């Protein structure tokens, strides 16, 4: 074993890591500080003698209170949660079956189909929303939660399918062959053996899908018009920026509260999530 000099470890490891952490976490810190800063401090310029841009001397919950009382924020939170959950579940179920089929069943054009699905995922939403808006209107789904629950899967299903296909491929095929010899049908082997073994992959696909729908902006902006039906990202932006006035305190309070559920979801499943992405199954 080579004993490294301490300063080298500092120079090449700790310091770069500290810089990286600072760089990543600073926006969140800024968000939190701004959300708790009284208005008086918020609109004070840097040049003033008592300016404290990086911390606050009089933390307040005023903005949170304002957010809850003057806007429909709790309702937005609920909408976002419901829509994200439903679209995640729809996408996961479709993605599990489609991913399994693409990973395991050999049929003509299965690889081509896999590629097509991936390309679908690459089509930018900014293009896709135009035809989708047409469909939503024709089906009279506009301004209902279903408009989002059914359009989010258009990009979530390809994503889940692709991620799960990769994960299923890492599971030794002998596992399901063995299950089939043991007396399971192909479908039974998939449900009883492959899906339980793939839980890390399924969870990480779910977390990703949930985050993507939680943060989605364009569809939510276009398909929802009533204030009480909006999701957090759209609601915060459309209701707290009035003309050229930015309600920074409430904006940041909304952003902070909006990101907490996602953070909780991540921290709960972080271990699964890592093995899900690196895809390791050990017998």
């Amino acid at each position, binding site marked *: 074993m080579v004993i490294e000099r301490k300063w080298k470890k500092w120079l090449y490891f700790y310091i770069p890591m500290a810089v990286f952490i600072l760089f990543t976490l600073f926006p969140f810190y800024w968000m939190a500080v701004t959300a708790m800063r009284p208005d008086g401090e918020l609109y004070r310029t840097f040049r003033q003698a008592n300016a404290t841009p990086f911390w606050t001397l009089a933390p307040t919950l005023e903005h949170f209170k304002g957010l809850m009382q003057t806007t429909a924020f709790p309702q937005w939170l609920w909408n976002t949660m419901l829509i994200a959950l439903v679209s995640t579940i729809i996408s996961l179920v479709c993605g599990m079956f489609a991913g399994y089929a693409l990973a395991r069943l050999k049929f003509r054009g299965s690889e081509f189909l896999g590629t097509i699905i991936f390309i679908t995922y690459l089509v930018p939403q900014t293009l896709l929303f135009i035809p989708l808006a047409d469909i939503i209107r024709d089906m009279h789904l506009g301004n209902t939660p279903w408009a989002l629950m059914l359009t989010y899967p258009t990009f979530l299903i390809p994503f889940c399918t692709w991620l799960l296909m990769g994960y299923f491929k890492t599971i*030794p095929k*002998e*596992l399901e*062959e*063995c*299950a*089939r*010899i*043991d*007396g*399971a*049908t192909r479908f*039974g082997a998939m449900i009883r*053996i492959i899906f*339980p*073994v793939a*839980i890390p992959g399924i969870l990480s696909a779910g977390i990703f899908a949930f985050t993507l729908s939680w943060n989605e902006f364009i569809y939510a902006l276009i398909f929802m018009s009533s204030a009480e039906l909006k999701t957090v990202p759209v609601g915060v932006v459309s209701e707290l920026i009035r003309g050229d006035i930015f309600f920074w305190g409430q904006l940041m309070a909304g952003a902070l509260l909006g990101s907490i559920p996602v953070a909780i979801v991540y921290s709960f499943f972080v271990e699964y999530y890592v093995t899900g992405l690196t895809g390791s*199954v*050990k*017998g």
Partner: protein
Amino acid sequence: MSTVTIRNLNKNYENGFHAVKDVNLEIRDKEFMVLVGPSGCGKTTTLRMVAGLEEITSGEILIGADVVNDLPPMDRNIAMVFQNYALYPHKSVYQNMAFGLQMRKYPKDEIDKRVREAADILGIQALLERKPRQLSGGQRQRVAVGRAIVRHPEVFLFDEPLSNLDAQLRVQMRVELKRLHERLETTAIYVTHDQVEAMTLGDRVVVMKDGWVQQVGEPLELYEKPANRFVAGFIGSPSMNFVDVTISDSGGALWAGAEGLRLKVPPQKVEAVRAHSGKRATLGMRPEALHLANGSDHADFSFDTAVDVVEPLGNEILINFRAGGAAMVTRVDPAVRVKAHQNIRLALDPARVHFFDEKSGAAI
């Protein structure tokens, strides 16, 4: 209790690869049949077709009296042990072993009885509540075998079950498998690339190469009467020495000659070899068919050479040398003291000489 019959079995893959060619096998009830051959010889594909995991291109497979070609794996009443064990990682050892019985709707107490019985046989009673990842390689292998035996299937299929184990454990498990087979008396088909495993485990052995069956026979039969040059070289370690010779007729006797080597064709081979007189053939000699010559050895079956490399193994010594333009090896008593580059005279046991056709490789 069951036989397995394979008739004109063929497997063509979609990419045009012809993996199994016209295989015909008759596996008797309670027999331990080993398929052996180098990788890509079609042995695993054959086994997987018996299991129902691979489509059959043409031919028939019968288990007992029933053609099983179109039966799904679950309806063939077989059990298979895989090379990578294929234990269900999310289930405990007990659940792994019980799964096959649960799928077949056995009552709970019957499942429990069978699992504990199998665990007893394999000495894994203490591991029943563990997960596969908490087990060592040998223990996983035992669980995989246990999962197969609880079902009391008609046929056991083994796909290189020992190749993931280290050398010592492999020898130990080999003995255990043999003992297990004697106890359970179930027909078994065992695939391996290791000829030692094949020889020690098999009641009969099938040697395959490039999709063709080369020879089927009892282990010693393959060793002593190989059907062709491939089988002769594949079975036995170190493998048989081969040298290309020209057969000539002089003074009423047949001689096999190569550069610096002239040996008389032994009397029991004369008749068969005579047809090749004046042509080339391959002479085969097992390492133990050669020994250091002493006064009693006939000059017609002896030749001079120089030692190349000496490999002392303890229970025997392998002497590498060149003769007739080919590298060869002989196995001698460990008491013999020879050094590299020393000149020696070797004698051949005339009863243990093999001749092979130069082109087809078939035994003469």
